[in-house]
């Protein structure tokens, strides 16, 4: 018996069993060609881009909600919902006018009052929003299409703040939704973006569906990342959550899904061999590996101990553990900012370059007063990136004759334990690993990990007045040259004080079936201009 005969036989049996005969697959061939089946990087567990700041939420939200400005592929903010803007001569009052034709998915027009409510909610959660709020006089609707943001002091990065792709983005929602407490989740998902969220089909953890919004009026310019004309060429996007990478790879090979956002490196060779599948770098801005030390407790409360780590650390070891032997996927990073972006700098990066000096590192450690006390390294085993880095660190510390307490745990536990400021013996910690998306590290705007503002700083709570001074200098910079100078000094200061230890820069892949076209490289998957042939 061949396969077709078997299937026909089973179909015959099923027609007897099922009333009304055998149902055909839910989608006809034409409908299937207009539906893009996408495997996202993670589960869309919630859908409030201000309340939940995970990248996966931002990626889905970019389809449903629009922004006033959008960052393009040159990292410049471009007008999106805004038709024009005006800045007063003293730099204190920004006046914006919305472009015509903007409509929410419930049919209501987008008005200034919606923008004011949305920006108020966003600015309570976003680091740049908080900065603006701190110097805000008032944010008001002038008329239905015009709104004004008046400040106590100039804020040159205003347009970048409104268009940036770092979470949380300044998405515009209807006023009634945007009035939700920023620390509580919205329950209605109405935006003015190019796609509508099909809430009735949402199975958190399994599936999310987005449908083309027929009334969306794209801009005339060509789309570039979050900017330009967002032309939707498909009717429907189905996000199918497949937690197991091997299953996702098999589903892509089998044609059950069309696009897999982030295939793991181990499976890429298999996908590359398949003639129906294209594989390419997902995001040229990549990621930065992070080895974070606790500045509050010995031995890393002494800068000499932190410098000992930088002196001995081999970024090549970390990167090879992370992405294997494909050298096109990683590069050393003697600094903190994303390579190949305008502000990239290696100023002060000598400590991470050249041959690694274990002897010098041991000397620095001894000078810091370290004498064999246990140091706890909390390592999430369920995240391949943190696990690989943790393993390399454990080996590095042994070479430095450090007494490593390797705490193998899961990401949820790392998340709560790293928030503890207590000493390591009382629930605290000395080291953990993570990574930053390169898109977050193109400048200091949304780069919480680079800050040195003590108690208010990111986990590890580094204190560095010099770093803070240069962050402020970047915010106040009037042009690119001033920005570059500030970031150069910032990089040097952050390395001298060892805010954290960068373990290298690495890229990851994305994969799709060859009947899909229009996929562009970027910090998030863009669904505009993507089409699918039968």
């Amino acid at each position, binding site marked *: 018996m061949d396969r077709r005969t078997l299937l026909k036989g*089973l179909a015959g049996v099923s027609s007897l069993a099922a009333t009304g005969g055998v149902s055909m697959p*839910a989608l006809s061939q034409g409908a299937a060609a207009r539906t893009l089946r996408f495997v996202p990087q993670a589960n869309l567990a*919630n859908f409030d881009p201000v309340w939940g700041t995970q990248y996966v939420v931002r990626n889905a939200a970019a389809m449903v909600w629009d922004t006033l400005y959008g960052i393009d592929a040159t990292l410049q903010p471009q007008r999106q919902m805004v038709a024009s803007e005006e800045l007063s001569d003293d730099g204190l009052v920004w006046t914006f006018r919305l472009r015509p034709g903007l409509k929410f998915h419930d049919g209501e027009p987008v008005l200034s009052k919606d923008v004011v409510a949305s920006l108020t909610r966003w600015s309570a959660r976003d680091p740049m929003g908080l900065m603006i709020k701190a110097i805000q006089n008032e944010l008001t609707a002038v008329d239905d299409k015009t709104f004004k943001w008046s400040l106590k002091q100039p804020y040159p990065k205003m347009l970048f703040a409104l268009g940036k792709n770092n979470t949380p983005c300044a998405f515009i929602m209807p006023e009634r939704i945007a009035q939700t407490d920023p620390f509580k989740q919205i329950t209605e998902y109405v935006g003015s973006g190019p796609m509508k969220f099909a809430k009735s089909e949402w199975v*958190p953890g399994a599936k999310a569906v987005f449908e083309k919004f027929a009334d969306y009026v794209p801009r005339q310019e060509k789309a570039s990342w979050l900017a330009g004309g967002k032309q939707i060429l498909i009717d429907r996007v189905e996000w199918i*959550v497949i937690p197991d990478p*091997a299953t996702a790879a098999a589903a892509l090979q*089998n044609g059950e899904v069309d696009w897999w956002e982030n295939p793991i490196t181990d499976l890429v060779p298999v996908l590359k061999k398949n003639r129906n599948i294209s594989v390419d770098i997902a995001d040229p801005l990549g990621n930065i590996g992070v080895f974070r030390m606790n500045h509050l407790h010995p031995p890393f409360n002494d800068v000499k101990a932190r410098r000992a780590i930088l002196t001995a650390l081999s970024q090549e070891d970390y990167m090879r553990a992370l992405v294997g032997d494909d050298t096109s996927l990683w590069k050393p990073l003697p600094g903190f900012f994303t390579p190949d972006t305008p502000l990239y700098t290696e100023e002060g990066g000598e400590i991470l370059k050249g041959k690694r000096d274990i002897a010098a590192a041991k000397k620095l450690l001894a000078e810091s007063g370290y004498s064999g006390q246990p140091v706890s390294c909390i390592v999430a085993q369920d995240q391949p990136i943190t696990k690989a880095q943790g393993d390399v660190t454990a080996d590095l510390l042994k070479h430095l004759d450090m007494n490593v307490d390797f705490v193998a*745990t899961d990401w949820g536990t790392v998340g709560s*334990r790293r928030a503890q400021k207590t000493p390591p013996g009382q629930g605290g910690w000395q080291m953990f690993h993570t990574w930053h998306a390169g898109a977050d590290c193109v400048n200091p705007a949304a780069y919480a990990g680079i800050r040195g503002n003590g108690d208010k700083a990111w986990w590890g709570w580094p204190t560095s007045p010099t770093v803070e001074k240069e962050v402020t200098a970047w915010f106040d910079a009037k042009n690119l040259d001033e920005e570059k100078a500030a970031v150069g000094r910032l990089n040097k200061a952050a390395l001298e004080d060892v805010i954290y230890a960068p373990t290298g820069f690495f890229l990851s892949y994305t994969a799709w079936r060859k009947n899909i076209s229009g996929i562009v490289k970027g910090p998030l998957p863009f669904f505009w201009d993507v089409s699918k042939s039968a």
Partner: protein
Amino acid sequence: MVSYILRRILSTLPVMAIVALFVFSLLYIAPGDPAVVIAGDQASPADVERIRQSLGLDRPFLVQFGTWVWHILHGDLGTSIFTSLPVSALIAQRIEPTLSLMVITLILTILIAVPLGVVAAWKAGSWVDRTIMGFAVFGFSVPVFVVGYVLAYVFALELEWLPVQGYTPLAQGFWPWLQNLILPAVALGCVYIALIARITRASMLEVLQQDYIRTARAKGLGQRSILFIHALKNAAVPIVTVIGIGVALLIGGAVVTESVFAIPGLGRLTIDAILRRDYPVIQGIVLLFSFTYVLVNLMVDVTYTLVDPRIRY
């Protein structure tokens, strides 16, 4: 019998209460914080604390437990911290795939394992017996996910007979529903088939030594009649017991199987909830599973009276 069933159902209440307290306490003392996961990697400690307060996670244990029990008593399993959807709605979304997987696995298992066990006992010591028991050892030894990957590779990728992943609701047709469940059911059923085949064999071997079987043979009854009518019915009590115990195996196995085959069932909901520390969802699912297990045990007890008329409650 009716009063027995009622008493058994009532007796589940204290069991459920103990399970509830145990689960709640365990989650309370377990490390991890949903506020941290919600806040994201770039959030400040102050943001995390604000979220923790908004979720009520900063309140004392007894207050949190009391609130939860109060809601349960009012038929409210709570609201998921992450999705803001009612736990009951999330469970309702996921129950069909898991139930379908378990039912298909159970049917497949009984249809394969019981005849295999009977034949192995009948041919005890022969190559047939050794082959079947060899397969049983294999079924025990190979993890579900390994079987799952091999099946997916052969039947989905190479032969292209069946899909690799996903679930189609029964409402969309019997075959689309079934084709998504065949591979997961076989993968999940392997351990279960091995277990029941071995128990059936052992139980049948004992029964086949009995005098009444010898008498039946002496009377000239056919082998099939002896094995499946006279012997199997008397060997059924331990088999039914193991099938009942096996439901727990199925629940545990479903968690892995649903992840491997991307079936949007309760198993995956459980894993997602645990990894994110979505306490209300974890509590709701564990309560549901424990209630199911208590019910299955009750059904097993009732089934004893059907296969052995000497048993009466």
